[in-house]
């Protein structure tokens, strides 16, 4: 593969470190040159694409890496492009398509999985960063024949409509109840020094990272409360 330290990426880095005032005057010079129609001078400088990042960069070839993940109790080895998110590794490499891609930017929660006991957005972590981690996806929580209590509660309370956000909602719900059990406070916990309770207000706040476009929120809440033993605020 090409050396990633050559080409415009390197120039870019150098530019950030350069004296900013000098850089500014460089830009102004370029602009005035362009205005004067000195095309040859403009070509000498890395051409730019509108206001975007440098375009002329020789794009480095993809770098591959070996990753071992313990997915739903099973050790899986895979070779991935370093750019592969955990979400894409699950869906594209391992064909575990229960985990959904919604926004791909950590805003919707559809990709929520449980890694080393904690819920995270699998779209905002790289597979290579999770080498050796234990990952639980919706497929690992339960099966159609042997549902996880949270899956059963979502069905009982009709906690979905289209179902796309549901795997993320369920993984998040399971982790939320564990977080409350562990005594982790939330934004709505009134007393920081005592243990939080699984009230509806607590559950709503803690589930705010999972968006449901169909608006099944009240039924999702009912399902989680059912599993938690249903303390109402």
């Amino acid at each position, binding site marked *: 593969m090409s050396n990633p*330290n050559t080409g415009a990426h390197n120039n870019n880095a150098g530019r950030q470190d350069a004296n900013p005032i000098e850089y500014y005057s460089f830009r102004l010079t370029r602009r005035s040159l362009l205005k004067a129609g000195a095309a040859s001078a403009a070509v000498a400088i890395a051409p730019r694409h509108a206001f975007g990042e440098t375009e002329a960069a020789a794009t480095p070839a993809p770098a591959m890496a070996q990753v071992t993940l313990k997915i739903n109790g099973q050790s899986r080895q895979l070779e991935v492009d370093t750019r592969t998110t955990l979400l894409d590794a699950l869906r594209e490499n391992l064909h575990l398509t229960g985990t959904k891609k919604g926004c791909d930017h950590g805003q919707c929660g559809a990709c929520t999985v449980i890694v080393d006991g904690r*819920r995270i957005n699998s779209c*905002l972590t790289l597979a290579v960063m999770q080498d050796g981690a234990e990952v639980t996806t919706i497929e690992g929580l339960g099966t159609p024949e042997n549902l996880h209590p949270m899956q059963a509660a979502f069905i009982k309370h009709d906690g979905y409509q289209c179902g796309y956000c549901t795997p993320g909602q369920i993984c998040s719900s399971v982790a939320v109840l564990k977080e409350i059990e562990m005594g982790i406070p939330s*934004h709505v916990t009134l007393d920081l020094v005592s243990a939080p309770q699984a009230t509806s207000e607590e559950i*709503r706040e803690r589930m705010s*990272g999972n968006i449901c476009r169909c608006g099944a929120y009240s039924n999702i809440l009912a399902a989680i409360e059912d599993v938690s033993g249903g303390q109402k605020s």
Partner: protein
Amino acid sequence: MKAFTYERVKTPAEAAASAQNKPGAKFIAGGTNLLDLMKLEIETPPHLIDVNSLALDKIEPTPDGGLRIGALVRNTDLAADSRVRKDYAVLSRALLAGASGQLRNQATTAGNLLQRTRCPYFYDTNQPCNKRLPGSGCAALEGFSRQHAVVGASKACIATHPSDMAVAMRLLDATIETVNPDGRERKIPIADFWRAPGNTPHLETVLTAGELITSVTLPAPLGGTHVYRKVRDRASYAFALVSVAAVVQSDGSGRVALGGVAHQPWRLAEADAQLTNGSQNVYQKLFASAQPTPENEFKLILAKRTLASVLTEARG
């Protein structure tokens, strides 16, 4: 996303040395902000240095009665730490007001300080942005600027720093500890950590190339009443329009820092000195140099009222 090479390092010195040898390389810890920006090719590092294996995930007491928070301590763990909840409640509150449970489980202490602005023009690569592409101009100045800075900004950039945690850290006079590629360590008072945007909004902090944050220390507890109030467009999972962090003592003295109004958490010594003279005086000192846009001048009224409300609450 542009292709990049990846390595996992074992010691801070190794991390800093690697950064020095690979120009343009970035450290990655939680990745919740960096990967987001890499997907949009706003950040295009040719090499990523994964620092998650460094032993920087502890919260320990310091000899002077404070706390040393490892750079890799996750937001959830910092907010839930019993010492933080008891003695630095404003920090727990600020952390819990930010992001979502999933993000707090991943995001780290150092990464939170270094997160980039959420200015929509910084994110939109079709728009000019002096922070993303120095010299290209600022689309926010005449654009949709409701979220933007009202104080401390410049003609080149009116972006805000999005963090809640940083506002509490600034209030508590935290110190940022770093290591350089040559092994030299330094302690940066948080008041000196961010640079004013001026003509160089792309230079956000005083960190130099390859310098790695190893921990953040808090001085001994201040006592008093701790409040963090965040005002935003929805009740959860949104960035602040205005936030107010306050620690107020029983005699009415104390300190305040504001989020959502500037390129950094906004705190002024002359404003703190006015705390016993009522919130109106505090507000006037904080915003004496304010230059809002027509779209965000409401933030001044919001800040004034939030300050008044927080100080009333803190004084019991």
